[in-house]
């Protein structure tokens, strides 16, 4: 392995190794209850939230569309899993619902439906652009919340459905198996999207992101590609929704309400809207803040019950001062350290994905041209 390859693959390999051994080292650090908590409530949930945030990062980064419908699409998949896997029964409105299918076929049905729902949202939304897009997808997402809240016939109204069990059984009884299932899906989704954007199709997506008119003039079907991005985003969000409903064991409108929609956006922005891996970093930090907000005190003011104020303030600060999120911040810090040590050719550029026009957020490739020691760097290396 050459030095460049070590730099290219060292960090990802270390990250994956850490994620794989994570649940195994927990029992050495905590008692059984705490270990289960860190495996499920933080580990698995970070991955589940990270996957849905990943779908947002993918769509904004490679499609130029910041979609706020992702949480609703995940919730749609969760409802589909519930309706497919619950045993048939007649509810108070007289409608018979539930197909009584096993977990995996239910999940497949849910993913197909989430992909189709994503395509439908795309078909409605893709004719608008930029900031309209944000509003339109938000309206659709909140609309879905009110539909499931109002509708007792098929969605169980405000109660929703309970008793949904995944292929690994109750997460609480077998937390490590559930964690690994989430991890496999998360890594699969991440690598799948990373691969996809390097294909012809992915390059077409990026071309449409950068200049839809030119791509249209070149003969590409812009609207169709946007719908395809939405369908893919719906599929990835659906993965998160399926894992999420297996994690909770139930589904109710609270899972698709406005605050969940906003949470996904916050996670993506905290992690760094330009970085796919930021989705998972953001989800982890979001959960850590969520859990430990009660013990935070600023100037004697306790955030015990004011978690939302803390997360709102944190979000505004990130948007104002660290627009490329925690991953961008870490990236810049690392580069300036490397420069001090004499390894990096140029000063790190601050990348501001939010400053882009009309809501287009291009993805920043960490590994491609900013890393130290890249041989064909276009900036001259200062001689010592």
């Amino acid at each position, binding site marked *: 392995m050459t030095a460049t390859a070590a730099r290219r693959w060292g960090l990802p390999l270390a990250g994956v190794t850490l994620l794989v051994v994570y649940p195994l080292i927990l029992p050495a650090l905590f008692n059984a209850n705490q270990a289960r908590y860190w495996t499920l409530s933080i580990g698995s949930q970070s991955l589940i939230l990270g996957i849905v945030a990943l779908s947002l990062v993918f769509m904004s980064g490679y499609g130029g569309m910041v979609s706020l419908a992702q949480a609703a699409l995940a919730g749609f998949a969760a409802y589909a899993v519930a309706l497919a896997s619950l045993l048939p029964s007649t509810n108070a409105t007289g409608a018979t619902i539930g197909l009584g299918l096993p977990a995996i076929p239910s999940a497949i049905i849910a993913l197909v439906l989430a992909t189709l729902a994503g395509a439908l949202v795309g078909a409605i939304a893709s004719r608008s652009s930029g900031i309209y897009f944000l509003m339109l997808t938000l309206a659709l997402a909140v609309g879905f919340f009110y539909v499931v809240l109002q509708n007792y016939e098929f969605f169980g109204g405000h109660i929703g459905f309970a008793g949904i069990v995944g292929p690994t059984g109750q997460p609480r009884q077998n937390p490590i198996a559930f964690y690994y299932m989430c991890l496999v899906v998360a890594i699969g989704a991440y690598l799948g999207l990373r691969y996809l954007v390097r294909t012809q199709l992915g390059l077409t997506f990026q071309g449409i992101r950068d200049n839809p008119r030119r791509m249209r003039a070149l003969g590409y079907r812009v609207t169709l590609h946007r719908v395809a991005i939405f369908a893919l985003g719906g599929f990835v969000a659906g993965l998160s929704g399926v894992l999420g409903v297996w994690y909770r064991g139930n589904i109710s409108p609270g899972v698709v309400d406005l605050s969940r929609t906003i949470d996904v956006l916050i996670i993506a922005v905290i992690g760094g809207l330009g970085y796919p891996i930021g989705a998972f970093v953001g989800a982890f930090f979001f959960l850590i803040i969520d859990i430990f907000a009660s013990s935070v005190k600023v100037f004697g003011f306790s955030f015990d019950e004011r978690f939302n*104020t803390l997360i709102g303030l944190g979000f505004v600060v990130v948007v104002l001062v660290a627009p490329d999120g925690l991953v961008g911040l870490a990236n810049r810090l690392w580069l300036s350290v490397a420069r001090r040590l004499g390894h990096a050719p140029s000063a790190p550029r601050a990348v501001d994905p939010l400053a882009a026009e009309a809501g287009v957020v291009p993805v920043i490739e960490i590994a491609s041209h900013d890393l130290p020691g890249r041989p064909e760097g276009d900036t001259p290396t200062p001689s010592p």
Partner: protein
Amino acid sequence: MPKDVTDFLTVCLNGVTLAALFFIVASGFTLIFGLLRTTNMAHGSLYVLGAYVGVSIVSATGDWFVGLAAGFVVVALIGIAIHVGLLARMAGQDLRQALVTIGLAIIIADLLLAHYGGIAYQIPPPDFVAGSVQIPWVVGGSYSAYRLFMVVIAVALGGALWLILNRTRIGMYIRAGIDDRDMLSALGVNVSRVFLFVFALGAGLAGLSGVVGATALSITPSEDGFILLTSLVVVIVGGMGSLGGAAIGALIIGLSEQIGLFYAPTYSIFITFVIMAGVLAIRPQGLRGRPA
């Protein structure tokens, strides 16, 4: 008159009076978006804020109109603070502005919950519209005078905004700015001051609509999502930045919601979204909007 007919007429009247509220809410949102291109995701929170200011002031003074004015002024001042402190510093970065206002919405909702708690408040209407009006063709033969008064407020407000936009110098600047901001600036108009005026006006309208809405319905801190959704749908259907579009959108959404609630209770929101999707399929820029 047969019951079917009175039912339908009553539902339509409910729709129109609800549309009046929707128009007042959405007018501020559409004005801000039309000129500043700022998507104020905190619009629902400003509505809730105005409603609570109204609750406090009306219970302290006993005068509904003082509460209405206070709702407008306080929220307009907060709007000025938001614009000067945050949004004006990121002019042209529409995504960042939307994100910052989302953060503000979270903070405002949480602080209001901390201060007022989760219970629902309602503002008592002014005395002269506290009772009901005899209308022979509605169910029960009488109808809430306050709900009819909302239509009066909406029409008066719409007229006032029309006069401001079409008969005053600042209105001329606003209309010119919606068409071409750069040209207006090049002509020597202090565009940033016009922006500030419009943002304060739009925020104030959100606060005022909060007082109006909290009298007709009731107010809880979680109302912000519904109001934001309503504003979005109304201006998406009507067309961004168009006051007339907001009026048409409000009427369509108000009527469809009430008719849906009566005839297909569990699908009323769904109907609203079918209408929105239908309008977008035919006119992506909304009924009265210009192509982007």
